[in-house]
């Protein structure tokens, strides 16, 4: 259970960081505000779950070695175009819904997170509808699909496949953090590592 929750929290933290990379450069001003706000929500969900697991959420978020993070490779990818970014948001939200609703009976926090995710899903779905017929978006979904499967444990993958109307393929599994993740981790923990001893936030 703890490993599953830590993976979930790490997913939320890292997708929040990756999506924050669009702040200031999203395709239109309104979307810039919305996308940044959603990214912050995801980081907020990560914090709430870290707090369940530990008395020191910051330590859990920032003081581990890159190899100790359990996030799925999907959220680690450094995506440089909007089509891929929206394809990831959409695939991630569908997968996240399956995972979070399965937890709701035993974890009240999951229901709370799910209520906020409803707006994220609305946002992702409206973008998907708009981009669905473009070759760029279709290619991005094809490319990211094996990664999306890796967000969920094997027993939840057929639910994801039927939701997005695709056939299951071999998933890109957790535990394969690469150099791009190390670079992100370096950036993400920079301020914390440079803080003078005893600094209070």
């Amino acid at each position, binding site marked *: 259970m703890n490993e599953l929750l830590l993976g979930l929290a790490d997913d939320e933290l890292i997708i929040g960081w990756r999506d924050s990379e669009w702040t200031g450069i999203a395709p*239109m*001003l*309104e*979307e810039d*505000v*919305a996308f940044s*706000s*959603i990214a912050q929500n995801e980081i907020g969900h990560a914090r709430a779950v870290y707090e369940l697991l530990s008395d020191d959420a910051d330590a859990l978020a920032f003081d581990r070695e890159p190899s100790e993070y359990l996030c799925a490779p999907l959220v680690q990818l450094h995506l440089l175009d909007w089509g891929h970014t929206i394809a990831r948001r959409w695939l991630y939200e569908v997968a996240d819904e399956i995972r979070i609703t399965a937890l709701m009976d035993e974890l009240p926090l999951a229901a709370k997170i799910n209520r906020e995710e409803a*707006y994220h899903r*609305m*946002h992702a779905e*409206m973008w998907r509808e*708009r981009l669905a017929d473009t070759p760029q978006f279709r290619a991005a979904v094809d490319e990211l699909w094996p990664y999306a499967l890796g967000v969920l444990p094997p027993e939840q993958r057929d639910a994801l496949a039927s939701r997005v109307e695709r056939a299951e393929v071999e998933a890109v599994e957790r535990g394969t953090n690469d150099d791009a993740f190390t670079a992100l981790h370096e950036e993400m923990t920079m301020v914390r590592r440079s803080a003078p001893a005893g600094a209070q936030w």
Partner: protein
Amino acid sequence: MIWEVFRQDRKGQPFEHGGSVEAPDAEFAEAWAREQYGRRGESVALWLVPRGAVHVVDEWADEFDLKYRRVDGYSIKARLKEARERAAAGPR
């Protein structure tokens, strides 16, 4: 397409114009307005109105000095001043 955003602070309060969002349809307008006018809990409800649907009235005829119809009535400041000057000048 520009959508005018009206927001309500609390239930029962009047909706007030908050600003606008540019969005291609109502769905995008909702998503963006939620983030820009509600993410800090500052609104309990929003009205999103396409700018083209707003019927604007901004021309008024006021050709005959109809100030007496208004609740603030005549301004007597100028007349008072004249009267005081007359009084100061003494009886004629």
